């Protein structure tokens, strides 16, 4: 019984779900396409229910640390208070414009997320400094090409040499795009191969086996 529930049933479900998606892709019949759409709705519903699992996890991990007064416990306490306050207002008052939840989102969550995104510029600068150090022939080529592309994308590049934007476009549209497409084709085949392995039950490592 345990073998059926933990091993065979997930494999059977994976096979069934995978085959439905494949067959529906090749069929234009509403019976199958709507069934596929319904399956996708089920996934969203299951995802919604499992949010509770996430709340339980985040609460238990952080509550334990606050209770034991572990290092950095005030941050954990702030997280728990934020979770209770925003979650409470969201559940009892709603999330529409003008509610407390909306105010918290617009004035606290959104600016904090924007700040994280803005920090990316500094991280790019430090990563670029390391990547562009001309230590090897390949790194030197990368440095030269990157300089051309960067200059070609700003007005001063055109002032330095009027054909720089054209050269930049050529680099982006031919060597760069060719490599990207190579990676995309390889990745697509890899994904398809993995999907076949999962549908046929050959690949079971995602179930911990």
């Amino acid at each position, binding site marked *: 019984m345990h073998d059926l529930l933990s091993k065979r049933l997930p494999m059977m479900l994976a096979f069934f779900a995978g085959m439905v998606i*494949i067959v529906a*892709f*090749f*069929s*234009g*019949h*509403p*019976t199958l396409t*709507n*069934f596929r*759409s*319904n399956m996708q709705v089920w996934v969203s519903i*299951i*995802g919604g229910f*499992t*949010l*509770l*699992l*996430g709340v339980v*996890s*985040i609460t*238990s*991990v952080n509550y*334990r640390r606050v209770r034991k007064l572990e*290092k*950095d416990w005030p*941050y954990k306490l702030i997280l728990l208070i934020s979770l209770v306050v925003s979650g409470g207002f969201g559940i009892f008052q709603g999330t529409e414009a003008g509610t407390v939840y909306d105010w918290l989102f617009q004035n606290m*969550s959104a600016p*904090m*997320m924007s700040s*994280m*995104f803005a920090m*990316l510029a500094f*991280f790019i600068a430090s*990563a670029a400094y*390391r*990547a562009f150090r001309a230590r090897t022939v390949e790194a030197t080529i990368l440095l030269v090409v990157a300089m051309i592309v960067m200059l070609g994308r700003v007005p001063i590049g055109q002032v330095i040499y009027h054909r720089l934007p054209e050269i930049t476009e050529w680099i982006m549209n031919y060597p760069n795009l060719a490599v*990207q497409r190579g*990676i*995309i*084709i*390889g*990745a697509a*085949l*890899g*994904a*398809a*191969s*993995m*999907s*076949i*392995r*999962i549908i046929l039950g*050959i*690949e079971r*490592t*995602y*179930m*911990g*086996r």
Partner: protein
Amino acid sequence: MKKLLRFFTPLFLHPAMLCASAGGASWFRTDRINSLILLIIFAAAVLIYIRLAKTGRPLFIRKLSGLDAMDDAVGRATEMGKPVLFIPGIQEVSEIQTIAGLSILGRVASYTAEYEAGLLVTVQYPVVMAAAQEIVKDAYVNAGKRELYNDSMVQYVAGSQFALAAAVNGIMTRIRPAANIFMGAFYAESLLLAETGNLTGAIQISGTANPEQLPFFIAACDFTLMGEELYAASAYLSGEPKLLGSLKGQDLLKIIIIILILAAIVYLMIDWKALFILKILETS
């Protein structure tokens, strides 16, 4: 039986579908026949190579240094007494890259269980958390180290992209893991995570099939699995002939695609009209 069917049918079928006449729509889309042919060739190639691998025929798979370094990364974590941080991407469990990431997590958890090193997995979706907990638990049980496992090894840290990046960056700077492993679908947060990990001095292994994020990972990580290598990882790490056989099948289709691309280039380079006129002139 009819009553039972009447009861269950609305659960599976959309109301609009119930009204659709069976004769009104086609059961097969002829415009997608090319995809079907390719799918059949691909599936056949994969299955043939799996069958060959099962017979014991040796298959050559090129070395993937990023995956070979996993063992060293866990060893380093054991020596330093610091945990291994694993992130299976920031997408849902229905995303194939997340599944690939979870497959690799199983192997990493086996290593950490074997070496008795710490493991911390951070996720963005509760479903991924539940799946990752099962995978890590199974790995510890299989290694005979059930007592070392606890559910807080896999943590749901945030429900949005940049909140996750902030939480994980905080974990990296506070705990300073010995190794950071990023495997799955990553977007703008890739560099935020990898660069912070680099600054903390951790050994970093990454893998993604998103080509836009690869330059960031290459710049900030010690090893990077690019595109298809991410999907090949579970097969490579397991060493199972059945899984390795599917990689060879994939290679065969890649060769076919390369031949088709070259044939198309040659076809486009030839001026067929000129050739045709030339032929007429010759015959007259």
